[in-house]
């Protein structure tokens, strides 16, 4: 009866639509409720019908925990609560609750307004859904009900990202979500308590086999090419996601601008979304790294000095500039528009994010030395500008995963959110190097894990005290070596032997009518006698 059952509804041997249903001690928790960005059919959502008692999700699921605001972790939530009808508790951190609506609304707009698709959920759905959310602080211990206890830990990755610990009775697990074990400019590294006595860790494994070098070299490289470009009078286009990377790179650039005294070269933010996001970041500065946090009074790190907002008319202004534009993979929208204008000039620079989905302009630029890119039926762009690929990833590398697993030393590990062959390698490494049982289930697989079981018994104070106090015992050894026993009277002092094995010793009394009780051996008689008089 004791044990944990994991149903992987999404992100099993793939990246996208993270969703794991964990049944632990009779409670059922849904970790993340994401959508897959690569599909447009029913495969974009986790297959909720596989959840036991799928007719009444509120009854079936004790609570939902969302680790961070990325769409592959939260995208299906409004659909699940407003369309599928789940009405139970939902937990996420304050920044996630604050920023999730921006992400969801942006996605909905792209889907419905631009691509003209049938909408999966409405704006009102998003608002209603977020109203049901309970925001939690890091390390805040939340008692969901009498038995289920959850707690968030700092995960790095994006602002507000958290790993979650859940405990029911004697079974406990940690679901990491996405995390980063090395600090970056504005976020700290993941941090969690040791000695949580975990039966299971469910970890992401995006970079299951990569080991990254120092990020300072990569930062220097990035700054160098940007500086070179603007020094030659070129324009830099940084297509980026509105939240996270944009702020990270902007802190980097703003700082560099300050140091190199580049006051005359403007940095622009194109989208209102990013400016709005900065407003949130300013208030949520407590969730960033210690260094950024400490600076709040003198100057909030998200009050960018050199950043101004961008007007469409400024697109062909003379002179160098740096522009942040969405979306990140140049799949459309403003970044594509700017790309068309700026790409043909060889003094300009375009940076690309670390990962681009196939089919996007970003992917085409990344995959080879494409000189001509067919943007749509009519337009072909002559790409003469410089291309720089960014390699800042907010995910942990394989060393980080190994470090975390070793640190937590759980009894079992389940890998999700990664590519199948890499995960298999990492799985082998965890099993051979750390000796921990590891699983890499595919979507819709179920993993069963046994966990140790405990029986509750009573104990007397004397028993506990006897166990806790260092019970170094010394006793006179009446027989010492080969010495003669008869010499005892002649004055040779007996040898003192001491030992302290810190072993809990006592006697367990099992009465059919009562809970078993551990007593100290000296108490045994009195306990038994008391019972005699009672019966």
């Amino acid at each position: 009866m004791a044990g944990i059952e994991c149903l992987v509804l999404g992100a099993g041997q793939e990246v996208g639509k993270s969703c794991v249903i964990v049944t632990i001690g009779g409670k059922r928790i849904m970790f993340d409720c994401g959508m897959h960005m690569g599909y447009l059919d029913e495969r974009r959502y986790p297959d909720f019908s596989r959840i036991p008692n799928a007719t009444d999700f509120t009854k079936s699921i004790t609570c939902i925990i969302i680790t961070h605001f990325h769409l592959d972790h939260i995208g299906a939530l409004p659909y699940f609560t407003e369309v599928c009808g789940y009405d139970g508790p939902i937990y996420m951190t304050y920044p996630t609750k604050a920023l999730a609506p921006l992400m969801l609304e942006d996605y909905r707009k792209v889907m419905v307004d631009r691509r003209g698709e049938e909408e999966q959920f409405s704006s009102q759905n998003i608002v209603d859904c977020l109203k049901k959310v309970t925001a939690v602080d890091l390390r805040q211990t939340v008692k969901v009900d009498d038995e289920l206890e959850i707690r968030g830990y700092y995960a790095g990755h994006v602002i507000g990202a958290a790993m979650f610990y859940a405990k029911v009775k004697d079974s406990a697990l940690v679901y990491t979500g996405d995390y980063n074990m090395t600090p970056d400019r504005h976020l700290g590294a993941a941090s969690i308590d040791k000695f949580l006595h975990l039966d299971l860790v469910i970890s992401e494994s995006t970079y299951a086999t990569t080991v990254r070098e120092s990020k300072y070299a990569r930062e220097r490289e990035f700054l160098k090419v940007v500086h070179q470009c603007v020094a030659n009078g070129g324009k830099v286009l940084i297509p980026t996601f509105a939240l996270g990377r944009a702020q990270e790179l902007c802190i980097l650039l703003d700082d560099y601008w300050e140091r190199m005294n580049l006051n005359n070269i403007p940095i622009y933010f194109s989208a209102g979304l990013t400016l709005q996001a900065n407003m949130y970041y300013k208030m949520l500065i407590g969730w960033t790294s210690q260094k950024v946090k400490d600076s709040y009074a003198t100057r909030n790190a998200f009050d960018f000095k050199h950043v101004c907002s961008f007007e469409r008319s400024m697109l062909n202004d003379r002179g160098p500039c740096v522009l942040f534009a969405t979306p990140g993979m140049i799949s459309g929208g403003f970044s594509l528009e700017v790309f068309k204008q700026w790409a043909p000039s060889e003094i300009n620079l375009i940076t690309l994010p670390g990962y681009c989905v196939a089919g996007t302009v970003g992917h085409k630029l990344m995959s080879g030395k494409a000189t001509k890119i067919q943007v749509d039926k009519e337009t072909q762009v002559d790409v003469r500008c410089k291309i720089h690929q960014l390699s800042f990833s907010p995910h942990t590398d394989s060393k980080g995963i190994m470090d975390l697993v070793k640190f937590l030393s759980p009894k079992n590990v389940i890998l999700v959110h990664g590519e199948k062959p890499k995960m298999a390698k990492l799985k082998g490494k965890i099993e051979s190097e750390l000796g921990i049982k590891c699983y890499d289930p595919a979507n819709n697989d179920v993993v069963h894990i046994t966990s140790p079981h405990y029986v509750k018994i009573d104990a007397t104070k004397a028993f506990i005290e006897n166990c806790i106090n260092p019970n170094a015992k010394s006793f006179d050894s009446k027989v010492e070596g080969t010495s003669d026993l008869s010499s005892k009277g002649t004055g040779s002092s007996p040898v003192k032997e001491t030992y302290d094995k810190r072993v809990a010793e006592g006697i367990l009394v099992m009465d059919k009518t009562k809970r078993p009780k551990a007593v100290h051996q000296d108490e045994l008689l009195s306990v038994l006698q008391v019972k005699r008089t009672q019966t």
Partner: protein
Amino acid sequence: MKLTLLCKGDGYHFPPCYMLDLCGFHILLECPLDLSALKIFSPIPSHCNQLLNVETSSDERMRKKQKTERPIEAKDLICAEPWYKMVANLHLWDLSFIDIVLISSPMGMLGLPFLTRAKNFSAKIYATEATTRIGQLLMEDLVAMHLEFKQFFGPDGAGFPKWMRLDEIELLHDTLKDILMGENGAALGGWQPLYSAADVKDCIQKFKTLKYAEEACYNDTFVIKACSSGLEIGGMVGTGDDVSKTSQDNETIATVKLENEEKIISSCETFEEREKIAFICSCAIDSLKQGGSVLIPFARIGIVLQLLEEISVYLESSNLEVPIFMISTVAEELLAYTNIVPEWLCNQCQENLYSGDALFCHVELIKAKKLHVFPAIHSIDFLNFIMNEVAGTLHCVCSSLESGGLVLLFTCFDDGVVIPIHYLFWRLQKIQPLLEILQPKCVLLPEVLRLKLPISESRSHSVLYYYSENETQSIPSSRKDFEISLATNLAFQLRPIMMKQESIAIARLNGKLIVDHGNFELDIVKEPDKSSMRQMSPQSGSLDLNILLAALHTKGINGSLQQEADKVGMIQVYEPEKALIEVHAMHTIVSADDETLAALLFEVVSNVLNGN
């Protein structure tokens, strides 16, 4: 558990201070400063002619000696660099014995640097992140204000100030003397010269800061959880759990502090409070309309934020273009800080976060140049501003501490209104609901509440205790048994023996006790027991020495019977090797050089006991 009220305090600015002895852990609850005692010192004189009075003439001394029941005059005040009065009774305790310090509000930590700078202080200090930060700012403000006195009076000489000499004290006005000496001079020991900025920094470094509802574990046995108290940002109600789970533990701590467990300021203040704030606002507006100015001294940041919101609304509605000043060395930082702690605010403020607005309106006010923040009254910017301003200004001075600056402003306020803000924090009506939520086994309340707060013991499930200052109140432990989690694999190893007469079975337990977060777990011992000591499962019945001797003989072991002390039977074994069997009433010890012989003897003894 024992609770000692070290000082009953006085309202918000001087919270009560307790020492709690919980199963041997000494826990200090709060470490405040009695800032009200500062009033015996004269503020920094604002005019030079006042300076002349600093030297008391012999005439003056004579006059002072004729103490009558006259009211205090400015001249009576001690004109010297002020010292600060902390909880005097704390000096009766050995600092090195304090294990934990719990701080629930910023005001409760102002006296802490006096302790942390002592060499033998080694306690862990717990407070919420917000309390720590705001408390640090208040302490820094205090140090900055004290600097003015230091500059005025110059460096202190011998360390023992003149005004503390007994003959000088004798000359003081009775009211001042009472404050200075306390009853029978007991308070004299509590006076200390102020700590330095470095002391504050050191003190803060010793804090273990907690997040909202974070559980901290002391020594793996005592769990502290910080909940919101509703009194102030970062206010904390400590809840604890301890190893022996004596009884009341956490709940007691929560209750002695008499704070309510709600979420912070603004939205959830009582009706009464809201009325007070409305009253203050309307007074201020009246005065402003008549061309006057308003001065608001404060210390409680929550109230200030609320006042700022309210007053700006009032100003808006009455079409008054009046600048608001906030003057404090830490005002800017304090305001900035309040805007980045959404976790500690009420739902209303959190809604602001979700909709992307600033948490408090002061951000907008500063942007719109309606609120001006200055570090000090004598800063050039402030003076320039004042020069160009017409009448009608509203000042918030960030200090309840009577500083020179405040008095300076005071003197310019002939036509203005000064609003003293005094709040009652013993919200009696809040105790009952709190008790209903917590359902503690036992409640400790101050003696003064015995009549004021009728809690019938029959109605609540808790046992009530009343305490008074400087008396230790002991609370007996009501719990005898503890709960242990027994690992099933250990349970399977047990070899129970049925008792003859009853439905009871007993088994010898041998495991490893793990204490984790206040819970006990009994687990299997991993390494095999290497000790040569062996124990058998408990046996009933007594050991008859003669039968034992006979049984030994059949195994080829010979020995002789010796009755040593009373009730201890001994068998000296001499063949095949030397060994000793001690038979006590409750246990039997077999000692032998040779392990195999010992094993054999052990087996024989077991057999005899089992009646074979």
